[in-house]
């Protein structure tokens, strides 16, 4: 029995860890490139979840098929939020920018859940397509289809983001902007537009995470901050701006929490915070970040 328990725990850890990584990668992108720490990141995740819920219940759109729609919708929502609330920060010096972005993000955290409560009430909603409970056996463990879909999605999104930043001209411009925005301007890069697209890409990916959260757990108006906090732990663990590291760090956190739950029960959540503190104390650049 021991082996089965361990391997099942391990699989569960990977499932949840992939979602942590998916949530964190958008935050890592905006913080790494723009030095904007959007603590309202989880609110966009929540909105993405509700959107998929609507698409399923009102229009019978399969949640996995709704992913591209949610991506596009949250991209534009992010663009609007950036234009309205964050773009004024872009001219500030770095430290002031981080501090002020915290306030703006916190404002989103206060307002967006209330809007969600008006639209969808405070009830917890799950996204439950017909296949949501099914699974298949693999060796000693059962693999559920939906969480497996989440892991695949996370891997695809993170790999795509990595390739986008490494290989495409625009991706290189994004990296250049994060390294030296003034230098970027002087090579002809439209820095304001790069910021806008980067931020929107972050919220769009958060929206994808929201769909998976709705599928594997549940969405409620207050679910956002919980995921922002997880994303922050992963961000610190991985190191700022390390896209590939985010996947590894997310999986690490997921597996640790899920293994920890065997010994500590519900207190396993504390593990993440302990890691957060230990990393900040002993390796502040993160496991995969540069010193």
């Amino acid at each position, binding site marked *: 029995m021991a082996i089965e328990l361990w391997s099942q725990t391990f699989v569960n850890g990977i499932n949840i860890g992939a979602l942590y990584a998916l949530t964190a990668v958008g935050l890592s992108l905006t913080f790494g490139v723009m030095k904007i720490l959007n603590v309202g990141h989880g609110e966009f995740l929540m909105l993405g979840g509700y959107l998929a819920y609507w698409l399923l219940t009102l229009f019978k759109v399969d949640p996995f098929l709704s992913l591209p729609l949610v991506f596009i919708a949250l991209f534009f929502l992010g663009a609007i939020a950036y234009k309205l609330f964050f773009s004024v920060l872009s001219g500030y010096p770095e430290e002031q920018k981080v501090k002020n972005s915290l306030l703006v993000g916190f404002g989103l955290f206060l307002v967006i859940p209330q809007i969600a409560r008006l639209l969808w009430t405070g009830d917890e909603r799950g996204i439950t397509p017909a296949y949501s409970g099914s699974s298949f056996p693999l060796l000693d463990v059962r693999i559920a289809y939906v969480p497996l879909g989440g892991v695949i999605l996370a891997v695809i999104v993170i790999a795509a983001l990595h390739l986008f930043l490494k290989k495409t001209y625009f991706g290189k411009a994004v990296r250049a902007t994060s390294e*030296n925005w003034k230098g970027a301007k*002087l090579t002809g890069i439209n820095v304001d537009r790069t910021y806008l697209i980067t931020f929107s890409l972050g919220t769009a990916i958060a929206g994808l995470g929201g769909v998976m959260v709705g599928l594997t757990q549940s969405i409620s108006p207050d679910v956002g901050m919980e995921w922002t906090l997880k994303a922050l732990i992963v961000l610190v663990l991985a190191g700022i701006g390390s896209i590939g590291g985010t996947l590894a760090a997310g999986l690490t956190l997921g597996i640790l929490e899920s293994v920890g739950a065997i010994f500590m029960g519900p207190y396993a959540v504390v593990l993440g915070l302990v890691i957060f503190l230990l990393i900040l104390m002993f390796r502040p650049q993160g496991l995969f970040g540069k010193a």
Partner: protein
Amino acid sequence: MLQVENIDVRYSDLQVLWDISLEVNEGELVSLVGCNGAGKSTIVETIAGLVTPENGRIVFDGEQLNGTPAHRIVERGIVLIPEDRGIFPGMSVRENLELGAYTPASRKQSKDSFEFVYNLFPVLKERHNQTAGTLSGGEQQMVAIGRALMSKPRLLMCDEPSLGLAPIIVKSILKVIKQISDSGVSILLVEQNLKASLSISQRAYIIENGRVATDGESSCMLDDDSVVGAYLGTC
């Protein structure tokens, strides 16, 4: 080609440029000389669109430039190598150069531009995969110049290209700038090193406390002991 007409620039309450007028003609190498803090960097940053002038006009090829954002000014063919070089330290030499040809027009010619830059600086070809931040100061300046050339500029502005470099490297950097000028690119060169910059330029403006103090032929200034005497050793 470039006319700067009576520009005033202020940083909030502090006015740093007063009624600056200057011009650069096609193919010319013009230097801006003057002491630290005289406002030379602000002049080129204003032309590059990083700073907006309060009054006055900047005209390039008969079109008004002020109010145009920096990235559009690059598309017009004016590129600035800033004092801190502005390179991307975490990216490879090749990627730095690639981004120099970011504007659509220059991207089409990037193959030729790469060849041109690698010919000018063979060491960059050898080190094309190296992270730019790990290069020596002189090599980083080569990356900065190379990146600027990738955009196929018609007017190249260099802000203190010799800053912090060993004398022998300064010599070779200035030689390269002369070479670029000979290839037909107009150059506006900011230098504290009065003698060196006067000796490679055709005309010069001396900037003092945010104003144009004198301007004229570089060779005349170099021969005029009163100019060299007044500005050499006082900075």
